[in-house]
């Protein structure tokens, strides 16, 4: 989804399926928290009942990337929009087993840290009036 929120009709047009099929496809994504329904006023309806849009819940997901370099290895965690949550780096060990062990330890640390940071951010967002 490039521009968000999008209307439910947009993916139906793109995928050439009807709106009820889209609704069925979207239900589990809403239930698991990957998508959220956008407030109707965010959508620019021309007339009639304002549509309920869909957008990604960017704050609920984060990614951890590992860049294995010849000399250094970097591990970083970021939100969907690219906002960096944390990063670590270390000299790449010559033995792959040692390198993988360090990467895994780093991923675990960043995962814990990022999940905590994300929860704090989410709580702050929920407590702020919009």
């Amino acid at each position, binding site marked *: 989804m*490039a521009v968000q929120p999008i209307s439910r009709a947009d993916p139906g047009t793109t995928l050439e399926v009807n709106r009820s099929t889209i609704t069925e496809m979207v239900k589990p994504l809403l239930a*698991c928290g990957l998508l959220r329904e956008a407030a109707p006023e965010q959508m620019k309806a021309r007339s009639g009942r304002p549509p309920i849009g869909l957008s990604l819940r960017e704050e609920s997901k984060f990614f951890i990337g590992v860049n294995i370099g010849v000399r250094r290895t970097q591990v970083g965690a970021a939100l969907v929009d690219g906002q960096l949550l944390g990063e670590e780096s270390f000299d790449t060990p010559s033995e*792959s087993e040692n390198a*993988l062990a360090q990467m895994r330890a780093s991923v675990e640390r960043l995962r814990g840290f990022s999940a905590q940071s994300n929860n704090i951010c989410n709580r702050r967002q929920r407590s702020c009036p919009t």
Partner: protein
Amino acid sequence: MPSVTRLLFAPHLGWRDVAVAEALRITDPSSHTGILNHQVPVLLRTSATAAAMYERRKRLRNSKDAS
């Protein structure tokens, strides 16, 4: 794109046939997907491919006419 889970050969590091994705795969016991012990997916790509994928997605997200 096919699923890539193993590093076949890294000449500068001297590594051969390393199961990178398997080593970095973690299980999320408290996943909010509702799936117990959800296996977090791991994608393994060369740095050039990973950078190209990131650029493409970033540009798509910033584009007004992309779907």
